[in-house]
């Protein structure tokens, strides 16, 4: 494996700019200085005399101060919870309380918001054990109160694997199409810093003049996005834009339709760019698989192969027997050093040292293709992705109990079906405001005879088919 910079240790291996905004440019040397200084301050305030750190939180905005905070907390070895800056204040508070956050990092400020919950004495870390360095939320605004715990090794391992297959070079420049509190967005930052490349930080959305002004000004060389970003790029007619520095497109965060893959494959071919179709989960730090560009045209519906250092298994559901042939679907398992330490639901979770798991049941149903790649055919877990963000269906059902006890949720990516909910303002308000869903992303529908499994439980697969059929009518 090639040697990439350990960005959590030192940043001044490189000359030239690291971070760019519409106002400022910060060089690697300057970034190192700011991170080192801030790390000392964090260390002083977040680690007690027995060497025990508390949990800090950061609303990760696409700006320089946030990146300094992130890198400084990792440097100081203080576990850090990254949250969506748009999360409403009540949800933030609930999350802080549940996970035992004591410190909030914001700009240059280090604010204590709660006393440190150091009830358990900690032993020095045994070499086989790891501690949580980063806590990431897997869902968007639905705020399912479960965070993924990642170790420093997880982050380093995934960064190195990605750099083994993505052609990131020091001369490259990325731009924040994705939020940095989201594992995919964070992986773009980490990989570019590890190569001494530049990253443009902006809060301007893809469909704005300001975004493309920055894009051209800094000669951005790649675009990373979830399928929704590619729908936007299609609408913007990317093929007609003059982007002389552009080298590649990278897609992850949900399955993109084979048509859209083909569309961008064509553009990439015409413009001499490369298209990377990739697969991952926050539970695996970010990335688990990619489709090697040279085989993409014959594998538009697949997620490709495991990243360097990783491995897949497909296991029969129920028996867990290994499936080796290409005619049978099962649950997709992933193995690698980027698999999370576990989930954190309470303070007692992140304070514990853990033996790295190395294996992950992805919750996705998959099959082998004839040429040994992996194709996802369904999902075991009860969640859907809306614009790349996870929505836990059980969680929404529970939250909607106060509206009606009969409400059931099912759906597929970018479409939530709310079954047997009253078509009232309260319902719409919850969906629009609490979940932040645009009306085109959900449907309220009535199903009088609910399909059930032999166990008597709701057959959600069948319910989804019914909803889909109804929508098509």
């Amino acid at each position, binding site marked *: 494996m090639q040697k990439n910079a350990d960005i959590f240790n030192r940043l001044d291996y490189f000359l030239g700019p690291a971070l760019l905004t519409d106002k400022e440019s910060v060089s690697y040397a300057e970034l190192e200085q700011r991170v080192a200084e801030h790390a000392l301050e964090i260390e002083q305030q977040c680690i007690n005399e027995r060497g025990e750190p508390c949990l800090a939180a950061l609303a990760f905005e696409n700006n320089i101060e946030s990146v300094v905070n992130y890198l400084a907390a990792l440097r100081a070895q203080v576990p850090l919870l990254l949250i969506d800056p748009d999360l409403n204040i009540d949800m933030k508070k609930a999350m802080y309380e549940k996970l035992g956050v004591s410190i909030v990092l914001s700009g240059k400020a280090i604010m204590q918001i709660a006393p440190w919950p150091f009830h358990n004495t900690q032993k020095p870390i045994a070499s086989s054990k790891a501690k949580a360095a980063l806590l990431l939320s897997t869902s968007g605004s639905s705020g399912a109160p479960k965070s993924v715990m990642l170790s420093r090794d997880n982050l380093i391992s995934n960064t190195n694997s990605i750099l083994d297959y993505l052609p990131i070079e020091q001369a490259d420049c990325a731009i924040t199409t994705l939020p940095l509190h989201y594992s995919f967005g964070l992986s773009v930052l980490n990989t570019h810093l590890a190569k001494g490349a530049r990253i443009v930080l902006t809060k301007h959305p893809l469909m704005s003049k300001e975004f493309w002004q920055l894009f051209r000004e800094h000669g951005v060389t790649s675009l990373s996005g979830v399928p929704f970003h590619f729908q936007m790029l299609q*609408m913007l007619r990317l093929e007609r834009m003059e982007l002389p520095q552009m080298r590649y497109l990278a897609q992850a965060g949900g399955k993109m339709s084979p048509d859209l893959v083909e569309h961008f494959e064509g553009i990439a071919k015409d413009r001499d760019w490369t298209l990377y179709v990739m697969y991952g989960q926050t539970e695996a730090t970010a990335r688990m698989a990619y489709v090697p560009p040279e085989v993409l045209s014959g594998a538009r519906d697949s997620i490709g192969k495991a990243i360097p250092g990783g491995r897949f298994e497909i296991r029969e559901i129920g028996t867990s027997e290994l499936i080796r042939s290409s005619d049978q679907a099962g649950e997709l398992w992933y193995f690698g050093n980027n698999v999370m330490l576990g989930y954190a639901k309470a303070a007692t979770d992140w304070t514990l040292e853990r033996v790295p798991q190395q294996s992950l049941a992805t919750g996705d149903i998959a099959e082998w293709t004839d040429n040994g790649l992996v194709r996802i055919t369904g999902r075991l877990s009860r969640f859907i992705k809306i614009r790349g963000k996870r929505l836990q269906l059980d969680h929404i059902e529970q939250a909607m109990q106060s509206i009606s006890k009969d409400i059931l949720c099912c759906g597929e990516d970018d479409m939530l079906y709310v079954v047997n909910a009253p078509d009232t303002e309260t319902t719409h308000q919850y969906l*629009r405001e609490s979940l932040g869903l*645009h009306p085109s992303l959900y449907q309220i529908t009535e199903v009088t005879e609910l399909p059930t499994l032999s166990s008597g439980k709701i057959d959600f697969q069948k319910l989804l088919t019914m909803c889909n059929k109804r929508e098509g009518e």
Partner: protein
Amino acid sequence: MTSEVLYSVFAKALGIPLEKVNDDLTYNTIKEWDSTAHMILVAEIEDTFEVMLDTDDIIDMSSVGKCREILKKYDVEC
């Protein structure tokens, strides 16, 4: 075409009541006008006024007033 048509296109695409639409309404300043809504809005405008917007105009459509101005270039008065 009148303002009403333009306003109702915005109200529908953003999922907000008609009364909340005016020329000063700006992209990314209200929660409802996010990227998803913006994309639907562009499609809706292209459909309603039978135009095919240039990339530069799509990314320049930062407010209702601006949209009206852009549509003039396509000979749409509203």
